[in-house]
């Protein structure tokens, strides 16, 4: 099956800093999403971005499908950004089957 690798596995930032999280995948995908799992365990949709670039406030994401990676940018980080960020993909040949990466754990210190 498709492999999804996220980097870095852990990231510690000072409040106000910027960061880039990466998601690499091993095969062509139909769908790609970024999620934030907050410290209470809730999974929050950030972006649905199978290709191109999207922005939402301090967050933006870019997916280059032909090169099989996606990037999540967090600018001016806040303590509420802490949690785990997951990338999830659906292969072109595997409709309905979503594969998650193991996530990047972000800690933003005040």
């Amino acid at each position, binding site marked *: *099956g498709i492999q999804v690798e996220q980097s870095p596995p852990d990231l510690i930032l000072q409040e106000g800093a910027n960061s880039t999280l990466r998601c690499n995948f091993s095969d062509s995908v*139909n*769908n790609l*999403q970024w*999620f934030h799992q907050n410290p209470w*365990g*809730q*999974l929050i*949709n950030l972006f*649905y971005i*199978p290709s191109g670039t999207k922005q939402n406030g301090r967050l933006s994401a870019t997916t280059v499908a032909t090169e099989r990676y996606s990037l999540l940018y967090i600018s001016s980080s806040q303590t509420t950004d802490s949690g785990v960020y*997951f990338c*999830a993909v*659906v292969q072109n040949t595997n*409709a*309905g*089957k*979503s*594969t*998650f*990466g*193991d*996530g990047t754990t972000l800690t933003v210190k005040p």
Partner: protein
Amino acid sequence: IAGITQAPTSQILAAGRRMTLRCTQDMRHNAMYWYRQDLGLGLRLIHYSNTAGTTGKGEVPDGYSVSRANTDDFPLTLASAVPSQTSVYFCASSVGGEQFFGPGTRLTVL
């Protein structure tokens, strides 16, 4: 009801017992999913359903069964629970490839 609800919120279960986790959505999404998340890891797909009346196996289906009698409900059954099924279980639905998650059920099998 708004979005996806799951019940129970948490459960402690003796090994060998049968358990059904409930999931209901009110968004009329055709596709629904069950995932498990083990401590420190990403989500793994157990079963999915692309539309009412159909189901499919995900990455880790053994020991679990699902049914999809209607659009709104997608119950997950553990016929005879084992300690390795201790996990947090998330239900999701999707439209146009974008997935939306319920709050999760924390299950402990002793």
